[in-house]
């Protein structure tokens, strides 16, 4: 069948044709970008932290009334940290525990500059985590080179002053970016304002920083463990529980800590506060809540959009069928088969859709360009456009099928009678 008569018929329905094509174009542009945003968010959310995330919990505690700026106060805090950790490690639900301020995804960002010499500009930056000899085992980090911290290496940090531990463990990503030749182990580096070097004694395979902020993406994997106990009134304990005992430990751990010191503060999560006891699953969920909501919203909007567009194509097609009953009858009377009629309407729909899709592909990239400029999105991959195009063509044909079939049921007699 030649498409010439279809084209000349379309020319008489310029407005309707344009509207449907425009709608297909806009739908394609939005759905492609929405799909791409969803995919980007899921990619973000799916990144492994490098930890063994099961059976891990983190508990916040604050001790007040101790002046942490005096030596006596520091000694009191230090003693209570050691006592807390001994208590925790002896709990039946607990395998291991250590004290710190942050872990991957837990929020907040404590960073340091790194340079190879004690002066000059900082070539790299890193997020640092307080750690001790229990940290690797508690977090389930995989050491790929070097060794763990030793007990006698663990110093004290009162969160002020320059940080210059003699030994550090870094993530492989940071090691490779500092020493591209892969010989980072045993090399000295200098942190911000440090005068003595810190030697890389161990390298872990992978360790994400504490923030998910995508603007720091290049630094997302640049983590450093410093062998220091954080001697401040506010701190966190990270606890690895026995398999299947996570829920029980989330009760027993705060109870044990309260039993040890009833005056301490462990936030209960009321009044908009962050909960004091969080499993790693909760930490992960909270860290990516915004991304998940955005993905969900894009999904809902895409579905509504496709439904609306499908409905609209079906509606307008059936209007056209109704309008052309007489012509269809005449064609049928002149010998056109039902199949011919269906084919006519489907081809007509396909022509409009293809025109819409071509405009839509342009719009997709325009929209993507605008989003990139505004929101630090990356360039849309053509795969999404292809998926979008196929989806819309199928949707459009599907929506036109029912009206086309109804058109085919028109009998020649009926059409002639109706005039």
């Amino acid at each position, binding site marked *: 069948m030649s498409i010439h008569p279809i084209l000349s018929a379309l020319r008489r329905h310029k407005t309707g044709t344009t509207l449907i094509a425009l709608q297909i174009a806009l739908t394609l542009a939005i759905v492609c970008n929405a799909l791409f945003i969803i995919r980007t968010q899921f990619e973000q959310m799916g990144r492994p932290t490098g930890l063994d995330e099961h059976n891990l919990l983190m508990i916040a505690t*604050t001790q007040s009334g101790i002046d942490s700026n005096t030596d006596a106060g520091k000694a009191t805090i230090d003693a209570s940290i050691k006592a807390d950790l001994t208590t925790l490690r002896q709990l039946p639900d607990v395998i291991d525990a250590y004290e710190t301020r942050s872990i991957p995804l837990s929020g907040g960002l404590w960073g340091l500059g790194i340079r190879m010499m004690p002066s000059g500009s900082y070539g790299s930056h890193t997020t640092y985590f307080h750690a001790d000899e229990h940290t690797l085992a508690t977090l389930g980090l995989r050491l790929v080179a070097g060794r763990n911290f030793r007990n006698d290496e663990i110093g004290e940090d009162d969160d002020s*002053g320059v940080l210059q531990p003699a030994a550090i463990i870094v993530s492989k990503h940071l090691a490779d970016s500092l020493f591209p030749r892969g010989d980072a182990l045993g090399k000295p580096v200098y942190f911000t304002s440090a005068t003595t070097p810190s030697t890389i004694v161990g390298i872990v395979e992978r360790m994400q920083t504490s923030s998910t902020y995508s603007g720091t993406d290049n630094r997302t994997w640049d983590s450093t463990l410093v062998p220091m106990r954080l001697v401040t009134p506010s701190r966190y304990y990270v606890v690895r529980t026995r398999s299947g005992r996570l829920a029980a430990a989330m009760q027993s751990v705060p109870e044990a800590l309260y039993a040890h010191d009833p005056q301490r503060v462990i936030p209960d999560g009321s009044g908009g506060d962050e909960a004091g006891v969080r499993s790693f699953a909760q930490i992960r969920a909270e860290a990516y*809540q915004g991304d998940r909501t*955005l993905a969900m*919203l894009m999904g809902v909007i895409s579905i509504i959009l496709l439904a*609306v567009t499908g409905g*609209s194509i079906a509606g307008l097609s059936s209007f056209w069928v109704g309008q052309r009953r007489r012509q269809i009858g005449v064609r049928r009377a002149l010998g056109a088969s039902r199949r011919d009629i269906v084919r006519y309407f489907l081809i007509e729909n396909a022509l409009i859709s293809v025109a819409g899709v071509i405009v839509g592909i342009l719009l997709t990239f325009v*929209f993507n360009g605008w989003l990139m400029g505004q929101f630090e999105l990356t360039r849309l991959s053509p795969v999404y456009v292809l998926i979008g195009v196929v989806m819309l063509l199928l949707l459009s044909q599907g929506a036109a099928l029912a009206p086309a079939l109804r058109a085919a049921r028109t009998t020649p007699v009926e059409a002639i009678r109706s005039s």
Partner: protein
Amino acid sequence: MFKYYLQLGFRSLRRNPVLTALMVMTIGFGVASSMTTYTVFRAMSGDPIPWKSGKLFFPQIDAWGPNARRNGTEPADAMTYVDAVSLMRDHRAHLQSALYPIAPTVHSEDPTQKSRMAPGQAVYSEFFPMLDVPFLFGGGWTAADDEQHARVAVISKSLNQRLFEGTNSVGQSIQLDSHSYRVSGVLDDWHPQPKFYGLATTDAFGPADQVFLPFTTATDAQLATRSGLFCIKLPGPGYAAMLNSSCVWIGYMVELDTPSQVSAYRTYLEGYAHEQQASGRFGWVSNNRLRNLPAWLDFEHVVPPQTKISLAVALCLLLVCMVNTVGLLLAKFLRRSGEIGVRRALGASRLAIGAQFGVEAGTIGVAGGLLGLMLTWLGVQVMHVSLPRQFAALARIDLALLWQTLLLAVVATVLAGLYPVWRVMYVRPSLQLKED
């Protein structure tokens, strides 16, 4: 006549239920998705103190020099202790306050109650009049209290509820960390969102501050900042070293009521930076900023990109819905060309035809708006559970949102109806009669 057109409209809508339902749903969904995302955007981008936002200014002093500027040009948004205290001492604005976030532990006298941390701010006495902070009981402390490092506190309504069961607690004492403070005032409900005064150091959204202490007293008691220190060079150990360091951790705001005060303050900041340069503390030319609140909110990127993307995509959806409605209305109206022809032939003016179909489009708009209202309500409920904790409270429905939703639906439908109505107005009577 309007009533008659309304009847005609309803009759026509009933005659074609599928097409009508399609249009109503299109408008409903389009409007609801826009309004749902808009509720969050509105709350985030709102002016937290509209009667005064043009008069509140946030000075920035470049204590770090050219190597550490944001985007190569912008000085840090927070201040060093040295600069904040110097500016307070000079006291050149009508009202001003340095401030930093704190989180002291509140101990209760009731031994069954667990101790809790109370988020708060260390501020100067002028903070309260400058921000028109509402008081339930008592008031802020005096400038003399600032000077004497007095142990006074202003507490929030919720903290007063917890500690004193809502009674007037002015003059009573509360135990924060290891010191006792006299309550000078209890705030009424006060939770500006975004929390504009703390943007230099803390997040824009989150729980309300519960306790306010004099800045001088807080630094005296060596209270640490609840947020972080931002340093290009780390200080030595100890609180005193931190105070003298080039680390920035303090917010600063001033009230300047007239343009001449603004320019005088700018000149003062310039002079201050020059002095610091002359004394050798700053090794660079002055690079100050003095942004008013709207500019400050923009600079601090209060609205997260996800919210903007959502709104942008939702508005595009509404656009598609409108295009869709144009098509459907056109189909629906032109199908009745015969009827229009008869009315025209019987003497109806083009305007009358336009009015009739305009009213019909408007009815669809209202119906779509009602559906949109229900869906928006549903959407806001979903937002409540799925937004990050600190944003969840922002998604809420109020009266303004209700009529905005309806208005948006009607305006969108009428806009979409313009072209179809114009088409039916130009249906030629004779031709239609002949064809039938």
